[in-house]
């Protein structure tokens, strides 16, 4: 986790550096169909995060040796643009983004009905235009919406959410300062209806009781985030229905 500092992250009223309560999410907005060429797309703004996701496929997996004769391969590519962070990030994949791409791919695979598309590949391109802590869970949340918008059959939606520890307290959805100077971060990917956990990473220092508190916050927030995902998708189909009725 981050480096120690003298910055006070929680004030005497229990409020956080950006004024939120410990159980409050940052402002969250999702929009679908923001790109012309992709089979499905989504744009998420979560706190200061601005992330675009495009889905292509299912299409024949290439190169051929990557094909699975029993199911489709979900291939997410998480990428941070050069201008997404304070100091310019060298373009292209680094070890961090390779790992994040892997865990996001695995999490989405658990939700997509991959068995319906043997030998196919479903590409999920995640582009972080502006990063503000929690990019992997924001990217995961938006990916799930983009997959659904592409009409790809899914068992459930994947919701990404994180909790962490700052100034010794467990709080929901770490902001940038909290991420930099906090003591633990627990990002999770959860299937919205079943509550199954498909992504989980953790770093820092958490007791087992603190883990319980953190997961309780995440599970509760999952419902709220899922509603926002649903609303984004419903908006898409309401617009479509309106178009149809006008014909």
């Amino acid at each position, binding site marked *: 986790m981050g480096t120690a500092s003298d910055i006070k992250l929680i004030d005497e009223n229990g409020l956080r550096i950006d004024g939120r309560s410990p159980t409050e999410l940052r402002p969250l907005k999702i929009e679908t169909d923001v790109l012309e060429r992709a089979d499905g797309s989504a744009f998420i703004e979560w706190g200061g995060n601005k992330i675009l996701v495009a889905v292509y496929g299912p299409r024949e997996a290439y190169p051929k040796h990557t094909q699975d004769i029993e199911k489709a391969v979900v291939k997410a590519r998480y990428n941070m643009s050069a201008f997404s962070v304070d100091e310019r990030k060298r373009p292209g994949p680094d070890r961090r983004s390779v790992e994040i791409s892997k865990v996001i791919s695995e999490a989405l695979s658990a939700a997509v009905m991959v068995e319906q598309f043997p030998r196919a590949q479903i590409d999920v391109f995640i582009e972080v235009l502006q990063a503000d802590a929690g990019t992997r869970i924001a990217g995961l949340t938006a990916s799930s919406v983009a997959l659904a918008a592409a009409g790809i059959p899914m068992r459930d939606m994947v919701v990404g959410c994180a909790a962490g520890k700052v100034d010794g307290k467990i709080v929901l959805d770490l902001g940038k300062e909290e991420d930099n100077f906090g003591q633990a971060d627990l990002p999770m990917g959860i299937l919205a209806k079943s509550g199954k956990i498909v992504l989980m990473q953790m770093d820092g220092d958490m007791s087992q009781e603190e*883990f319980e508190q953190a997961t309780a916050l995440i599970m509760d927030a999952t419902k709220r985030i899922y509603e926002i995902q649903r609303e984004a998708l419903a908006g898409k189909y309401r617009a479509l229905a309106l178009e149809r009725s006008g014909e």
Partner: protein
Amino acid sequence: MPKDEAGVLSEIKRNYILKKLKEGRRGDGRSPDSFREISITTNYVPRSAGSAYVKLGRTKVVAGIKIESGEPFPDTPNQGVLTTNVELLPMAFPTFEAGPPNEGSIEIARVVDRGIRESKMIDLEALVIEPAKKVWIVFADIDVIDFDGNLIDACTLAVASALRTAVVPGSTEGGKDFALPVRNLPVSVTMVKIGDEIVADPDLEEEQLSTARITVTTTADEHIRAMQKGDTGYFTLDEIRKAIKLSSDIGRQIREKYFK
């Protein structure tokens, strides 16, 4: 992870392992929460600053530490640097190929690194030669030489053992050589889910049968320092609670038995 030499696990073996697991036994006779035999040989490569040869069942890895002076990261001018790298050598398995690290070996290295780093095992602040200019850089490199499952735990054991014996070459910077300052001991415990069962320290066959993997790294205070879920399956929250409990129990046993 790759399949076995034949490319798949034979149907007979698969059914045998699943049947045994239902009876609470594993293919090799272990109970679900037990590790394979561990052997640790430190100082295996005396030319390195610290080293360890670790056997975890039939999985074998060698960790070597090199320590050189260099520049600190701009955002941590008062800390030394730790970098961890894992090489899946082609000699270790028929389908391992030479070349740049793939996503599998990057994930292993990063999970191992996180356990060492977040447990604050190395006192990085004691590795500053000249603040913001010159610090000690600790390179932890791991060669996987024989693969039979559970590389994350084998690699964490090897790196932790090697770091505990490592010497900083202070004499090259006008001082004295000194033992690398280490404090906590992280122990990672990796478990996989086969059917509805959770088993610790999976061998290769069990990894092939499993749908999801979880690693929990703890320190002696039984706090969680790092976790990673892998693979395309899922865990319920109860299964994760069970995995955390199992990790802290096994971690305690490993500390007592091998790191007295």
